[in-house]
């Protein structure tokens, strides 16, 4: 056995001293607001006056608000469309990247340019692309004899347009995560399937995809957490309209807080969002634990 030194008595003071700066910041501007948010959810508060305790009134008024079901429907539609498009495209690109390839770095960099660009800048560029009169998208449609489509000002296309842009923005992240998952797959299994004469499609469908299951789930959960938090693009491009068709939960939260000054209601909404995201995160952590254990057992 390796001899271990008894920890110095002074070590516990050094330890505390080293963590204090970080903990003061995180405690004051992180933990405290999270706890306060929960309490504010039970008050009536306009920021200027004193908060008045109203129990569950905010949650009741949320449930009774005619906008609420619309917001939930918009958010869920956004998340589902985003997930479908995002997972399929990212997986396709990752599969294409998963071969001996010169220029892998070039493709990865290209896919990452949108990821590192601010959502505000991206939203402005895509507003120009979606422009009904002179935008690139309608121009391309015109070449094939279609359109023009009023992408952002038509209630039936505004939300899907935002989804397309969001998928474009974050695709690179998921490609890289899928690629890592693909490269960690056991090579022997894939080889033996190939030796057994399975076609490429059969191998993907019956071998690769089932083996990739945990990665798909992980990437999917991370992507849906991101989708639930959509705000910047809505603020810049549609202001929640037309006719509330793009009012997703975080945008409505922001409006309640900083347009209508109903901070209690906004906080109640924030905690509902928190509940959903916490559940998703918890599933993600639990899966990851199991996954890591499996890797270690193997």
């Amino acid at each position, binding site marked *: 056995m390796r001899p*271990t*030194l008894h*920890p*110095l008595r*002074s070590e*516990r*003071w050094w*330890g505390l001293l*080293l*963590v204090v*700066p*970080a*903990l*003061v*910041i*995180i405690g004051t*501007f*992180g933990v405290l*607001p*999270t706890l306060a*948010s929960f309490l504010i959810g039970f008050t009536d508060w306009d920021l200027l006056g004193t908060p008045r305790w109203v129990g569950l009134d905010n949650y009741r008024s949320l449930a009774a608000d005619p906008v609420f079901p619309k917001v939930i429907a918009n958010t869920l539609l956004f998340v589902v469309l985003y997930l479908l498009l995002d997972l399929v*495209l990212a997986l396709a*690109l990752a*599969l*294409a*990247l998963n071969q001996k390839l010169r220029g892998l770095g070039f493709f990865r960099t*290209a*896919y990452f*340019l*949108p990821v*590192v*660009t*601010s*959502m*505000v800048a991206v939203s*402005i*560029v895509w*507003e*120009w*692309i979606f422009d009904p*009169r*002179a935008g*690139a998208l309608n*121009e391309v449609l015109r070449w094939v004899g279609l359109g023009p489509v009023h992408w952002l000002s038509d209630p039936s296309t505004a939300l899907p347009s935002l989804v397309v842009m969001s998928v*474009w923005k974050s695709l690179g992240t998921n490609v*890289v*995560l899928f690629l890592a998952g693909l490269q960690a797959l056991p090579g022997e299994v894939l080889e033996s399937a190939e030796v057994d004469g399975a076609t490429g499609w059969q191998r993907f469908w019956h071998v690769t995809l089932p083996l990739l299951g945990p990665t798909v789930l992980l990437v999917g959960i*991370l992507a849906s*957490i991101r989708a639930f*938090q959509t*705000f910047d693009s809505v603020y810049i491009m549609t202001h929640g309209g037309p006719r509330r068709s793009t009012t997703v939960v975080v945008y409505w939260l*922001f409006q309640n*807080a900083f347009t209508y000054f109903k*901070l209690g209601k906004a906080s109640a909404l*924030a905690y509902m*969002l*928190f509940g959903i*995201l916490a559940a998703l*995160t918890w599933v993600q*952590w639990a899966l990851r634990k199991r996954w890591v254990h499996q890797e270690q057992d193997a």
Partner: protein
Amino acid sequence: MNRTLGLGVLWIGAFLCTAPFLLLLATSLMTYEQSVGYPPAFWPSPATLDNFRKALSEGALWRWFANSVLVAVVTVAGQILTGAMAGYAFARMTFKGRDLLFFVVLMTMMVPVQVNLVPLFALVARLGWVDTYQALIVPDLAGAFGIFLFRQWFLGLPRELEDAARIDGCSPWRFFWTVALPTATPAVATLGIFQFLASWNTFMWPLVATNSDHLRTLPVGLAAFRASMRETTDWPLLMAATTVAIVPAILVFLILQKQFMKGLMDGAVKG
């Protein structure tokens, strides 16, 4: 996947991912007349730098740029410092409440920023910090991701190093600064690029926390600039300003790409 098909998919993907940037650049080099002409033009002819001149001659864009640089640099430095110190202590030292405190720090990673928005604003208002640099900087001087990253790094530090230093009578404080921290450059680089990009691109908090034009960061300034042209949009001018805003983030990414990818995997997979 079939090799040719695979390459085709990759090239189409690369085109779609970069095309909006090419359009951004092309439009920023057009005249206003060209951008409103019909049918729409994709290629600037004649190409002009007037939009960049005009965008940069209005002092506001420089000011927003400088604000973004200031906030990013200070928060990157702060996060590295507080994160390395706390990460080291959580990894290598024994003190009362260590595991509980680390658990609380980890838990804050789970809280979406929107949950804290209202009380954080109320707190900052109470401190008299609304519309100040403190509001943009101080809440971001430490973060769970940085602590987590450095803790992972220092967990891998060989115990023998510490034992030797202890025998030589080196204090934990000096050991941290002169031995442990200099080994951690990869963690510094990873946290540095993550925090830089996060700070450079963040929108919601600076939008809420500031209201004067001269305190805006680039995303907030750009959003206000865009909103100010709601009736008729001068797309070439707007695209020139947008180009100026995104170039630093792209440059930093290109330089520190390797560290960025590594951090992405650490954050998403290993955790």
